[in-house]
C-alpha cells in the first residue's frame, strides 16, 4: 500500500510542533527506514502512520484513500513493538492467531494461518510454547508473524532490534528483509542505527528536529548527503568535518571561486583520503603530518594533522611505519562542501539520481 503524507503537522501541546509540515510518499511494496536521533520525530511519524496518534493538521493517504480520520484498527496496519508485546498467557499459536480471533475467523482456519506464518518466520517448532519460554529473537519472530496475521496493509516496526544482542541483530535484520520480500508487504522500520538502516532499506528517511532531512536510497544518502546533518549521521566512522577556510588554499584549482566563497564547512569521508594517486578524480593534494597509524584486520587507519585539524583516514595500507608526514590526496567521491546553513553546495556529483 502506497503511503502519502500531505503537509502533516503534529503538535502534542498545541504550541510547539513536534513534526513540521511533513510531505512524502512511500512507494508500494518497499521497505523504508525512519532514521534519526532520539527525539527527532521518527516514532511520532510511525504513530501517525499507524493511527495511534491523530495528525494536528494535514492529510494522510493509504493508496488513494484519505485515512487521516481513521483509527489504528480501521487502517489495518500490523505493528511490531520494541518489546514485542506478546500476550504472556497465550501459546505462540494463539498469539499469532489472536488478531484473527478478534475478526471472528473460525478456529481451524485461524490455526492453519498461524501455522503458515510460523513457518514463514521459522518458529513452527515452537507453536505450543508460551512467549516466556522463547529467546529474544524467537519472540521477535512471533511478534512479526502476529503482525502479519491479518494481512495488513502496512507492516510497522518500532525499533524491533534494539533489545537483541549484536550478532542476533544482524541475523534478524536479514530475516526481516527476507520476510518483507517474500510477502511483498510495504514495511516501515524505525531505527536510530544508521548501519541497520543502510543494510535493510530500499529507502531511508532521515528525520531530525521534526523535519525530513533527506529521503532517498541508502547509496544516495551516503554519496550525496543533502546537508551536513545527514553527512554526519550516515557513515561509520563519522565523516571528517573541518572549517572550509582551513582547506581553501588547496581547493582553488578544483572548486569554482563562487562556491568556495560560500563554503563554511568541508566534509571528507575517511575513505576519501588516500596516500597515492590511484587514478580516481581528485579534488586536492594536501600535505599533512601522520600520527597514530593502526591496523585492524583488513583496515589500516591513521590520524592526519592538517592545518591544526585532525583527519581520520581508513586507506593508509602500504605506508612505511617510519613515515611522519607526506602528501595525501582527497578523492572527489566522498568530498563535500556545505554552506552556512549546512546545505550541500559541492560534491556528490559522481552519482546521478
Amino acid at each position, binding site marked *: 500500500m502506497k503511503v502519502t503524507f500531505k503537509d502533516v503537522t503534529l503538535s502534542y501541546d498545541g504550541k510547539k510542533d513536534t513534526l513540521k509540515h511533513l510531505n512524502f510518499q512511500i512507494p508500494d511494496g518497499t521497505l523504508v527506514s525512519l532514521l534519526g536521533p532520539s527525539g527527532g520525530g521518527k516514532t511520532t511519524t510511525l504513530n501517525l502512520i*499507524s493511527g495511534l496518534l491523530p495528525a494536528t493538521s494535514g492529510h494522510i493517504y493509504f493508496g488513494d484513500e484519505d485515512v487521516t480520520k481513521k483509527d489504528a484498527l480501521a487502517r489495518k496496519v500490523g505493528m511490531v*513493538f520494541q518489546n514485542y*508485546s506478546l*500476550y504472556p*498467557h*497465550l501459546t505462540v499459536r494463539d498469539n499469532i492467531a489472536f*488478531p484473527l480471533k478478534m475478526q471472528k475467523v473460525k478456529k481451524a482456519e485461524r490455526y492453519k494461518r498461524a501455522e503458515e506464518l510460523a513457518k514463514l518466520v521459522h518458529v513452527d517448532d515452537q507453536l505450543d510454547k508460551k512467549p516466556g519460554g522463547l529467546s529474544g529473537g524467537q519472540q521477535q519472530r512471533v511478534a512479526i508473524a502476529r503482525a502479519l496475521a491479518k494481512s495488513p496493509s502496512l507492516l510497522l516496526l518500532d525499533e524491533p532490534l534494539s533489545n537483541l544482542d549484536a550478532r542476533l541483530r544482524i541475523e534478524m535484520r536479514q530475516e526481516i528483509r527476507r520476510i518483507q520480500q517474500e510477502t511483498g508487504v510495504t514495511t516501515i522500520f524505525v531505527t536510530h542505527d544508521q548501519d541497520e538502516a543502510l543494510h535493510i532499506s530500499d529507502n531511508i528517511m532521515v528525520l531530525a528536529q521534526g523535519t525530513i532531512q533527506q529521503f532517498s536510497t541508502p547509496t544516495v544518502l551516503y554519496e550525496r548527503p543533502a546537508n551536513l546533518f545527514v553527512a554526519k549521521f550516515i557513515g561509520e566512522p563519522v565523516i571528517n568535518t573541518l572549517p572550509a577556510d582551513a582547506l581553501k588554499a588547496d581547493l582553488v584549482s578544483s572548486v569554482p571561486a563562487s562556491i568556495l566563497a560560500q563554503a563554511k564547512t568541508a566534509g571528507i569521508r575517511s575513505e576519501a583520503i588516500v596516500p597515492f594517486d590511484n587514478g580516481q578524480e581528485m579534488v586536492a593534494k594536501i600535505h599533512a603530518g601522520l600520527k597514530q597509524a593502526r591496523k585492524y584486520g583488513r583496515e589500516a587507519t591513521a590520524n592526519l594533522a592538517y592545518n591544526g585539524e585532525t583527519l581520520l583516514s581508513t586507506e593508509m595500507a602500504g605506508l612505511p611505519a617510519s613515515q611522519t608526514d607526506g602528501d595525501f590526496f582527497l578523492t572527489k567521491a566522498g568530498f563535500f562542501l556545505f554552506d552556512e546553513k549546512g546545505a550541500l553546495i559541492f560534491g556528490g556529483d559522481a552519482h546521478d539520481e
Partner: protein
Amino acid sequence: MAKKISRVLLYLIVALGALTMLIPFLWMISTSLKSGPETIKVPPVWIPQVLRWHNYVEAFHAAPFLRYFVNSVIVTVVTTVGQLLTSILAAFAFARLRFWGKNFLFMIFLGTMMIPGEMLIIPNFVTLSKMSLVNTYGALILPWLASFFTVFTLRQTFQSTPDQIYYAAKMDGASDWKYLWTVLVPMSKSTITAVTVLEVIGSWNSFMWPLIVTNSEKMRTLPVGLQAFTTDAGTQYQLLMAASTFVIIPMVIVYMFLQKYIIAGISKAGLKG
C-alpha cells in the same frame, strides 16, 4: 557455620510461629472429641480418654446445618462472583480509561477504606429494611457486591501491565471489553485468584452481618448457626467445636489448593510491577 546456625534459628522461629497459629485449631479438634466435663477440666486435657466421634453426629442434628450450609454456599458464591465482576470493571476504568473526575473519584473511594465496617452496620440496616430486604438473601448479599479493597488491588495489577500490550491488542482488533477479558484478566490470574480466595473466606466466615439481618432460621448461615450450642444454661463446647470443625473444613480445602496464588497475588499487588 554461622550461616547454618542463623538458618536453624530462623526455622525455629518460623516453626514456633506456625505452631502458635495451629494451636487453636488443634484445641478445637481435641475439644470436639471430648465429653462434656472434660472440656472444662483444669489442667486442660489435650487427648480425651475416649474419642467421642458421636459428638459430630449429635452436633449435625442439633440444628438444620444442611440448610445453613446451602445458605452459606449461595451467599458466598453470589457475593464473590458479583464482587469480582464489579471490581474488575471498576479497576479497569481506574487503571486504563480516561474520564472526567477519575482521580477525584478514586481518592474518595480510597477514603472510604478508612471508615470502620462497624460504622456501616446501622445505615446499611436502615437502608435494607426500607427496601424490605431484611431476612432475605438480598440483605446477605447486596452490601458486599462492591469492595474497594478488591478494586484497589486489581487496579494496581492492571496498571502494572505494559501500555504496549494494550496498544498491541488494540491494533489486533480488540475492543476495550475484549482486551479486558481475553488479555488483561488472564494475565492477572494470580491476583484475581488471591482476591477471590480472600473474599470467599471472608464471606464464608462472616458472622456479625448475617446475625443482624436475619432472624428466621431459614436464612441463617453456618457461623450464625453455631450459636445453637449456646443457651441460657451454658455452652456445649464439645458440640460447638465439632460443628466448628465441619464448618471450616471447606475453607481449609480451598486454601490448601490455592495458597500458592494467594501469596503470589498479594505480594505482587504490594510491590507493583
